[in-house]
């Protein structure tokens, strides 16, 4: 429990241009090292091609030029998620290389890097590099990739299959399906999404004078984790040679967790040129190379008994992994998402088979929710389809199958231990808040205008805490999730809190300051929170999986306790009494009934240590239990049958996030998540040309939700505090997007019931809806 001074405390002194980044006051692109060299990348314009020849630019035109052959020794970017196939073998592990040496497997893959004095000059030099390609046939759709005769990407993955994984017992599944009164089968598409935070990725690398070390300024969701992957795993360095600094991050939603080739390549360029090197992604590069999300084809089966009780849900999924394995690539479609296929319901059996397949597309990885939204989409859509097929009311079917509070704590068919929740109460509350009773009236009013109205519901259950990731990595380190905090008293009543999580727009720092202030009995204004600094903490797991309030608070509370223990010991020794007589109560110590605020003790002890303050503490905490945020969403849509336009008219969400620390932040996370889910359901459409290049490669063609797509939402919070963490909180950051796609699509199907044959897949763009309404033989 040492509180050693930061390892590279001198970093900002050595590199004054780092000051704003170091304090988290600017975005990465705002950082401008004097004399920095700029790099640009030559990228494959083809989805699949062999590189025949690369013509280097004239040396006079560039400061440096690198192809794959020119790079120093390194390892590929690792995929850290092991998958064991159904037959007991390990998944394929083709290398995620920094640059293509002989074959490009997706549009935008790096072929070469050029360095120049300005970004303009680098861009122009890169655009002028002549590369001769032999174009190969490409495949972009996951289902097409496993068909016989499909173009193959990797020798290591015959038939493009990276893994063939299952969860649950296939024999038991077959027995349940044979005996079920009703078996409902559907094929569902979870569309590919471009994550598209408004701040594009960027990286700045610079040597630290007088050392063999480097600093890398770059957006991450955890500087320590990124540092270890880049330095230790890819470059083979002692991780201490590299410090990663993450300033403000302009949105991430998962995509900036992962290590990308450009971050390593700017470091290599910096080392080769012994200069600071900067790269900022264009939007086009972002569309082609930021990891993308979702992209599953799922054949789903719901088995029910004669009373409408769900006996089993089974799925057979093809998950598109893209051309390379990103760090967590196989994770979303397997261990992270599938255990939630039973949602909040009492489902006897879950069986899932997932084939992860390679295609000539941008690598896929965790987008907000990482598999949980995909699982909920399948489950919640299947419940509506089953209700329709069996002639039941979808809401009643949900109530019939939802776990009752009296059944908690419970262990689901997939092994999730649920501590708390009020699932049926959520459904009833949502029914009331969304005014189901008034729906018929609103539908009639819409019909009078020639519009069709539908209402749809979806429940969600979150599993937050980083356990799924920690569990599948047991083979590597056998650990539970960790997080680290460091509290330092820096004089004048100021406190520095360092934390290993990383915000990307959500205001973690404010919440942490509130939390710590309450623990230490002081004002939050006196606390400055630092994140994104590998040099200031020995460990940091980072943000992901809606766990920061849980893991961050655990580390902060344990560190605060260490501080109080030190202060108590110091006070006891100073006042020559047993520690038991120094009582910590209501945010202050009590000595014979006299209150001594912590900050007064801090002042008293201020000059007692040569280095730092004697109460400073750093603690790495183990996160022992996860949280299960849950809730029920209701969406109402209006459809114009003449144009196929779908408008979300009303949206209600009842959520159980346990104890809420900052309401405004939770509301914003909810609204943002629901909005991204509405985008997935209605507007965000990733299309490819026949040659495998991306047809929707900019924000003119790929439609993010706009203000008019989003209604004013009714957000209701009713919760049971989580029983397994001190504050009683539950994760909320990804929850909105877990329920909104199925809520919207259930509402849409309800609106169109009887007017369309078959199902509408996401995104339900106007044309898709219009085509369904005007299919041959209709209208």
């Amino acid at each position, binding site marked *: 429990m040492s509180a050693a001074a930061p390892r590279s405390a001198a970093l900002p002194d050595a590199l004054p241009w780092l000051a704003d980044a170091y304090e988290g006051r600017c975005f990465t692109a705002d950082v401008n090292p004097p004399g920095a060299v700029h790099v640009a990348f030559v990228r494959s314009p083809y989805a699949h091609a062999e590189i025949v020849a690369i013509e280097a630019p004239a040396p006079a035109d560039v400061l440096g030029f690198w192809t794959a052959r020119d790079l120093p020794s390194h390892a590929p970017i690792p995929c850290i998620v092991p998958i064991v196939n159904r037959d007991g073998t390990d998944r394929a592990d083709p290398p995620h290389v920094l640059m293509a040496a002989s074959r490009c497997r997706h549009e935008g893959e790096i072929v070469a890097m050029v360095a120049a004095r300005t970004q303009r000059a680098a861009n122009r030099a890169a655009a002028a590099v002549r590369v001769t390609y032999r174009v190969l046939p490409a495949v972009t759709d996951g289902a097409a990739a496993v068909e016989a005769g499909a173009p193959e990407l990797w020798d290591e993955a015959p038939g493009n299959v990276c893994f063939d994984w299952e969860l649950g017992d296939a024999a038991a599944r077959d027995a349940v399906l044979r005996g079920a009164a009703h078996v409902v089968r559907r094929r569902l598409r979870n569309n590919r999404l471009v994550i598209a935070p408004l701040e594009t990725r960027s990286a700045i690398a610079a040597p630290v004078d007088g050392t063999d070390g480097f600093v890398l300024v770059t957006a991450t969701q955890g500087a320590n984790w990124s540092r270890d992957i880049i330095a230790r795993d890819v470059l083979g360095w002692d991780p201490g040679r590299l410090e990663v600094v993450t300033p403000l991050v302009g949105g991430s939603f998962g995509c900036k967790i992962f290590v990308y080739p450009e971050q390593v390549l700017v470091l290599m360029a910096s080392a080769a040129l012994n200069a600071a090197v900067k790269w900022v992604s264009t939007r086009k590069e972002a569309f082609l190379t930021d990891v993308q999300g979702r992209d599953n084809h799922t054949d789903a089966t719901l088995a029910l008994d004669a009373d409408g009780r769900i006996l089993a849900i089974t799925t057979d999924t093809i998950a598109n992994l893209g051309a390379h394995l990103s760090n967590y690539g196989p994770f979303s479609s397997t261990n992270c998402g599938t255990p939630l296929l039973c949602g909040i319901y009492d489902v006897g059996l879950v069986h899932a088979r997932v084939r992860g397949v390679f295609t000539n597309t941008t690598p896929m990885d965790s987008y907000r929710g990482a598999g949980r939204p995909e699982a909920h989409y399948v489950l919640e859509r299947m419940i509506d389809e089953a209700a329709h097929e069996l002639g039941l009311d979808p809401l009643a079917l949900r109530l019939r199958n939802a776990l009752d509070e009296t059944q908690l704590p419970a262990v689901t068919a997939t092994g999730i231990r649920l501590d708390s929740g009020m699932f049926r109460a959520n459904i009833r509350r949502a029914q009331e808040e969304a005014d189901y009773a008034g729906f018929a009236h609103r539908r009639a009013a819409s019909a009078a205008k020639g519009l069709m109205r539908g209402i749809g519901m979806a429940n969600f259950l979150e599993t937050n805490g980083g356990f799924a990731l920690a569990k599948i990595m047991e083979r590597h380190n056998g650990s539970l999730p960790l997080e680290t905090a460091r509290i330092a008293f820096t004089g004048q009543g100021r406190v520095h809190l360092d934390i290993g999580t990383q915000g990307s727009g959500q205001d973690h720092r404010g919440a942490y300051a509130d939390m710590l202030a309450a623990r230490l009995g002081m004002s939050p204004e006196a606390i400055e929170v630092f994140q994104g600094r590998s040099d200031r903490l020995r460990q940091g797991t980072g943000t992901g999986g809606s766990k920061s309030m849980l893991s961050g608070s655990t580390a902060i509370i344990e560190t605060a306790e260490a501080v109080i223990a030190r202060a108590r010991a110091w006070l006891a020794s100073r006042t020559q009494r047993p520690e038991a007589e120094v009582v910590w109560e209501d945010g202050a110590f009590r000595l014979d009934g006299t209150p001594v605020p912590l900050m007064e003790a801090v002042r008293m002890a201020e000059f007692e240590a040569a280095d730092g303050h004697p109460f400073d503490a750093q603690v790495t905490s183990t996160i022992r239990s996860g949280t299960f945020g849950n809730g029920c969403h209701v969406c109402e849509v209006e459809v114009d049958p003449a144009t196929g336009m779908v408008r979300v008219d009303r949206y209600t969400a009842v959520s159980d996030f346990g104890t809420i620390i900052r309401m405004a932040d939770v509301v914003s996370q909810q609204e*943002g998540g629901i909005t991204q889910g509405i985008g997935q359901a209605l507007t965000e459409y990733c299309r490819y040309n026949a040659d495998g290049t991306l047809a929707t490669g900019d924000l*003119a063609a790929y439609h993010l939700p706009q203000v008019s797509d989003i209604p004013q939402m009714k957000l209701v919070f009713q919760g049971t505090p989580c029983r397994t963490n001190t504050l009683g909180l539950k994760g909320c950051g990804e929850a909105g997007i877990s329920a909104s796609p199925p809520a919207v699509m259930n509402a849409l199907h309800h609106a169109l019931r009887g007017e369309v044959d078959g199902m509408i897949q996401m995104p339900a763009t106007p044309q898709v809806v219009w085509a369904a309404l005007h299919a041959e033989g209709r209208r």
Partner: protein
Amino acid sequence: MQATATSPAGAGGTLRVNGRDVALLPDDDRTLLEWLPEAVGPVSARSACDGAHCGSCAVVLDGTPVKSCTVPVASLDGAEMRTLDAYQQEAGALAPLMEALAGPSVFQCGYCRSAFFFAAKALLEETPEPGRDDIQAAFAGLLCRCTGYQAIVSAVEGAARAMAQAAHAPHGAKPVPRVSAHAPRTVAAACAAAQARPGAYWLAGGQHLVPLLQHSAQAEPSLLEIAGIAELGRIEVVGDRLFVGAGCTHGQIAASEPVRSALPDLAGLAGKVGDIYVRARGTLGGAMVSAWRNGSYPSFLMATDADVLAAGRRTFALDWFAERAENRDRPPAELILGVEIPTHWQVSHQAFRPRPARPALVSVTGARDVAGDLRIAVAGYGARPFLVRDADTLLAAARGSLPDVELAAMLDVLPLDDGEASGAYRLAILRQLLQRLPFHGA
């Protein structure tokens, strides 16, 4: 804001940035967005979309809200601009707006903040007491990826109430866009400049400059600034014709009294072009060149039998757009002066715009004269805009039960069938739009 020391006027002149004069370099070919951080240090106008869509790079330039990615810095000698940072220092009358937008979790990462601040500022100057719908309309097309937008709308709503209560200084006359000292002031001078620089792009206002300037493999194409030519900004009625200069912004056309009384649907369509920034800076001429296939103006100008006036010639709009389609990959060599539209029509313009602030998928204009003769033009349906051959018959057919295949056959033009929309869908939309035209069949 870290501004560099104030420099004396250099050969490129000076630009006043957040209250400080900053020297411009001669022949600087950077966009304002690219120049700002390099010249004055980080500012809150941020690069995000590279396509002039999102608004994150917004600033106010001589009183006009603009996306700084559409402005070449070389054109700004003598101009005055402010970024959001200036208002964070000193918001003046806008303090309630600043305060409301800084509320807890109104934004999350805040990267897009400038887009919404300057759009709200422009809205409140025009409409001091906006309704929620007005605010939504002012934000159309702008992008935030973190929030659900509605908290931003609510913040502006609250600020507007607070500001309306405070004695609100009346808004002055519309600012006139400033142009560089060396920019041509006459058509003749512009044409002479163009002859000297073949292949140059006319630069009127709101072009997408980032792909052209920053990401191009070529040495920068030269730009010919034409915003200083007074004639191009003229709107006037001459007899039974309305002249609209090519340099008029969509916002000017939408607000123009002569346009509103002579051709209200032209004002209406101009008011729906692009987003609030595009309307403040984008021009008629620019839209004719860049949105010749599916923009709203082509069908309007073709149906109303307008003339396109270019330096040295007068062309029917019909022929001008056909030529433009032929030369789609080249910047226009000639300088468009404006359009002259007969005003004796009763006109109706109908457009289907699936995404607000983005181009319409299909648009239709019908124009009928006192004799009852009807002309209908269509854009966005086929590979190029066209005038319908027999408008009355088509209108009757669209309203009747004629099957789609036969309706399509009447058009002589094949519908585009691309990733954006199928031919069948375009036809269905066209039929809808035709049905909305308020004309009775012959």
